[in-house]
């Protein structure tokens, strides 16, 4: 058979295989897509009014909630029914803020109380009438109602509360739980080597809070809501992590997962954790654990920040009476009992507790002991402040604790943290006059129109455009072809960009946008000189971002092109298999793989350290220094990014005609010469758009930096886009600031685009 006939046969077979595949795929797809309408059509809709409940609960808590809802539905059958919607925890607040103020959203929602300030500011919850509270105010445990009250108005009904307590190892502490931390420290002498008296997440302010509060620390000054978290005795308490770690009381890496690992392996005498935790592993198998209230420290009893899980009615509900009835039910007697029996969650009525905080109903069961421990934690601690500014405290405080645990300079860390808070705390810039934005907008529109007209005139003078005008119908045809994509882009992509850019001249204060002109840019671009080149400043982040982009693109390109070339020769067997394997990093969602890489770089149990242990890498803390944390991000992003370049190169290589290559072989070119002078130049035009786009995406690659290094150490590995994110969501909702950062990112990339174009033109 001739080669042409064989090829024609192969093409026919391919077409037939393709057809079969397409038909099967289409049928399967149809089946899957029609599944939903069929199921919906065949499920009955209950009669009565619909009350929508949004929550973020999972597992056993969700099951208990659904059981309660079903009971409520049975009680009210015919009049109304409750329909729950499960919302991912991280999206709930945004979802509420985006929907409720505009009339959408749920009737009732369940949320921990600490976001209440922000939710009230954005007009989400509806003030609760006394009817919705199932028990009288005095019946609630002290402090719980404060959590669900904001600006003097009650918004939510407490369902339960969660506080930190002590889990202890009954084998390592045969005399029972320690009454004081000092006692626990003393037990170090009786513990086997490799075990630690105490393990808790000493890098998290939430877990450190018991010590902070016992030392007399206060997050806000009582009088004016000024931040006082890094002042006074509270600030001193931050040094404790470092001290305890240096004394060998805390393990070398005092983090949450490490704490659980040590405890479950029987290597920690006591840990501080919350009621959501049930020990697993060896300690669970041998049942050698117990729960107890937090011990005292330096003579003062310890209590934690307490989270109140509460039910709220939303402003947009059209059935307020029914919604409140649901809230009262979910917070009421029956629900309290169910939660306690099923989930060991403590009830909220103070009458259920005796003098010593124990639950009168069942003090000796695990649930009873948990309740007692949490009750005492509440008594000695406080409900987490629900102020709108509380959100800005966590990260700076965590950073100070991390510095302390790592043995770095705590005073410098405190200074940094105070500065970070000061930037959040600055009184909102004075609103400029209302006429100014209007005038500015008019000027911009005028400028835009002038530039546009000038550009049109220049283009029209160009020879090829002039020619096409003469061939009339082609010009109109162009419009038809361009219209769909261009219109879609302008309306749904560019308009939001323009609006977001405009947002940079406003600041989001107390739920409203206030015009501040260029103040945001001034703050970002002109920081105090001594801070201008440190982490968290614009210039530092810019430098890190540029380095990040350059290295990544280089690596992606090199690896992608090299692997594509390796996969090119037809004699390579299992080519398809290799291609599938090598494209997996791209195919699997990067939120799981980025987290897996983070886990692999973990100092204690990470696979990377295990692999490199012959080289002495055991216990190496990758995220403790800029270079190694940056490296970890780089490795992860390279792993994620090279398949794209590889696939693009493979595509480009297929269009290289064989004859050209064969001609060069006949001319006597060596393999290397062929590569450099024939193959690479041919694929370059196809690669250039991908390289440009790839650089832009890498510049703005938020996921990897946020998930892998998390900006560690101390925001040093944060790139510009993750800084923008933090300003929007972690430092007090400074959306205008984040928008200003975005505009600067954009300006920088435009400049870069200009420079590369000029370079390309000069080359050509």
């Amino acid at each position, binding site marked *: 058979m001739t080669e*042409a006939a064989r090829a*024609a046969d192969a*093409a026919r077979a*391919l077409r037939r295989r393709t057809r079969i595949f397409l038909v099967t795929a289409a049928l399967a*797809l149809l089946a*899957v897509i029609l599944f*939903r309408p069929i199921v919906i059509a065949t499920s009955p809709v209950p009669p009565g009014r619909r009350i*929508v409940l949004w929550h*973020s609960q999972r597992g056993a808590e969700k099951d208990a909630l659904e059981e309660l809802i079903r009971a409520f539905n049975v009680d009210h059958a015919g009049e109304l029914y409750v329909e729950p*919607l499960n*919302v*991912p925890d*991280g999206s709930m607040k945004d*979802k509420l803020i985006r929907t409720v103020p505009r009339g*959408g959203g749920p009737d009732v929602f369940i949320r921990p109380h600490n976001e209440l300030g922000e939710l009230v500011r954005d007009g989400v919850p509806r003030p609760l009438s006394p009817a919705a509270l199932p028990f009288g105010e005095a019946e609630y445990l002290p402090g719980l109602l404060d959590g669900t009250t904001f600006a003097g108005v009650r918004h939510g009904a407490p369902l339960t509360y969660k506080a930190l307590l002590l889990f202890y190892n009954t084998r390592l502490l045969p005399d029972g739980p320690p009454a004081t931390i000092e006692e626990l420290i003393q037990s170090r002498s009786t513990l086997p080597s490799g075990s630690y008296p105490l393990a808790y997440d000493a890098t998290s302010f939430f877990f450190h809070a018991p010590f902070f509060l016992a030392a007399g620390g206060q997050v806000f000054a009582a009088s004016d809501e000024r931040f006082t978290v890094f002042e006074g005795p509270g600030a001193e308490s931050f040094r404790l992590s470092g001290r305890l770690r240096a004394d060998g009381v805390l393990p070398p890496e005092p983090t949450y997962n490490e704490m659980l*690992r040590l405890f479950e392996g029987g290597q920690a005498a006591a840990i501080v954790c919350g009621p959501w935790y049930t020990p*697993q*592993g060896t300690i669970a198998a041998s049942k050698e654990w117990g729960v107890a209230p937090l011990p005292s420290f330096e003579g003062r009893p310890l209590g934690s920040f307490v989270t109140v899980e509460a039910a709220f009615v939303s402003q947009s509900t059209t059935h307020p009476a029914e919604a409140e009835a649901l809230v009262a039910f979910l917070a009421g007697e029956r629900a309290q009992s169910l939660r306690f029996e099923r989930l060991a969650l403590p009830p909220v009525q103070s009458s259920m507790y005796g003098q010593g905080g124990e639950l009168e109903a069942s003090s000796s069961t695990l649930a009873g002991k948990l309740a007692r421990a949490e009750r005492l934690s509440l008594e000695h601690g406080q409900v987490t402040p629900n102020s709108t500014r509380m959100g800005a405290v966590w990260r700076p405080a965590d950073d100070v604790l991390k510095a302390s645990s790592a043995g770095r300079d705590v005073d410098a860390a405190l200074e940094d943290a105070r500065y970070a808070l000061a930037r959040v705390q600055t009184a909102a810039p004075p609103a400029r006059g209302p006429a100014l934005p209007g005038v500015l907008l008019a000027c911009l529109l005028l400028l835009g129109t002038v530039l*546009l007209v000038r*550009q*049109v005139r220049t*283009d029209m003078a160009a020879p090829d455009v002039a020619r*096409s005008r003469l061939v009339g119908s082609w*010009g109109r045809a162009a419009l038809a072809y*361009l*219209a*769909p*994509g261009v219109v879609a*882009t302008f309306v*749904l992509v560019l*308009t939001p960009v323009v609006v*977001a850019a405009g947002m940079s001249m406003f600041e989001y204060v107390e739920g409203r946008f206030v015009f501040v002109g260029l103040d945001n840019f001034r703050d970002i671009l002109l920081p105090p000189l001594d801070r201008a080149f440190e982490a968290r400043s614009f210039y530092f982040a810019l430098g890190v971002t540029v380095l990040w982009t350059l290295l990544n693109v280089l690596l992606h390109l090199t*690896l992608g092109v090299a692997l594509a070339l390796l996969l090119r020769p037809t*004699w*390579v067997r299992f080519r398809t298999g*290799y291609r*599938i*394997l*090598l494209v*997996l990093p791209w195919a699997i*969602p*990067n939120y799981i793989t980025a987290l*897996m890489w983070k*886990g*692999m770089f973990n100092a204690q*149990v990470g*696979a990377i350290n*295990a692999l490199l242990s012959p080289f002495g890498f055991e216990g190496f803390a990758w995220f403790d220094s800029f270079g190694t944390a940056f490296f970890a991000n780089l490795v992860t992003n390279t792993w994620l990014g090279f398949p794209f370049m590889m696939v693009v190169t*493979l*595509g480009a290589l297929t269009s290289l*005609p064989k004859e050209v290559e064969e001609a060069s072989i006949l001319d006597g070119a060596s393999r290397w010469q062929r590569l450099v002078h024939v193959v690479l130049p041919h694929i370059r*035009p196809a690669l250039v758009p991908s390289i440009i786009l790839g650089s*832009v995406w890498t*510049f703005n690659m938020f996921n990897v930096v946020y998930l892998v290094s998390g900006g560690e150490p101390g925001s040093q590995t944060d790139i510009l886009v993750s800084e*923008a994110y933090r300003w929007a969501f972690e430092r007090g909702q400074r*959306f205008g600031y984040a928008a200003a950062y*975005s505009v600067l*990112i954009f300006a920088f990339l*435009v400049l870069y*685009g200009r420079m590369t174009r000029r370079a390309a033109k000069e080359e050509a």
Partner: protein
Amino acid sequence: MKVRPLEVVLVHLALLVASTAVIYPVLWVVRLALSPSGRLTESGALPIPDEVSLHSFSEFVFAQDFYGRPIFFIQLGNSLLVSGAATIIGVVFALSSAYGFSRFAFPLKNAGLRAMLLSQMFPAVVTAVPLLFLLDALGLFGTTAGLVLIYATSSVPFSIWMLKGYFDVIPRDLDESARLDGASSWIIFTRILLPLIRPGIGLTALFSFMSAYNEFIMASVFLDDVTRYTLPVTLQQSVGGFDPNWGVFAAGSLLLSIPVVAVFFFVQRQMVEGMTAGAVKG
């Protein structure tokens, strides 16, 4: 052309090393998905599981909603529908515009192309808010159609750029000779150019599909009915809060990747084998 055995060995070695390095983290995800406790407490250098349990997978696949309906399959359908529709719409729009940009001369052409590129440069963190406002103004908030529109239009600029590049590679002479034969621009577009850039279309479609399919941030804020959720939204529910369920997260992510790998498998065969047949003929 003779191939030296040493070369074969070296190439295979390089590919094996690369594949192993690439698949290593994936194996850890698999181990996490198969672990009975849903946590990776013991570990070493090799992701070999001590105990294997499929309960994370079954928990994800056989999940039921409040009314006892098999929610995984419903949401799988949603994911495929939304991503598929967004890809088709986006690629069609982009193809048409890319043809216009590549083959026609008109004022503001370069400005338009730059605008496409510039739209990619603005971080999505802040554009999400105005976009949601816009959709609400259009009355599409919370609808599947609205989500499809968001995904389709956000992939258009990138697709236009990529496809224009593929169009540009084909010489203008082809157009000219067809025009001399009396072909209209539509005929040139559909009969002559489109078949030649099939690999480009495949690649662009794959990319659009993947971005839409894996996206969860917009979807979780936008959709308010559990029967309209896409799979990534439910996946995100298993983590977050105090006690994340990593096992289900890992299992779900692996299951989620299967359609993408399938689409890639199909596209890459089209890309490579379709083209070599054409090259010999030409």
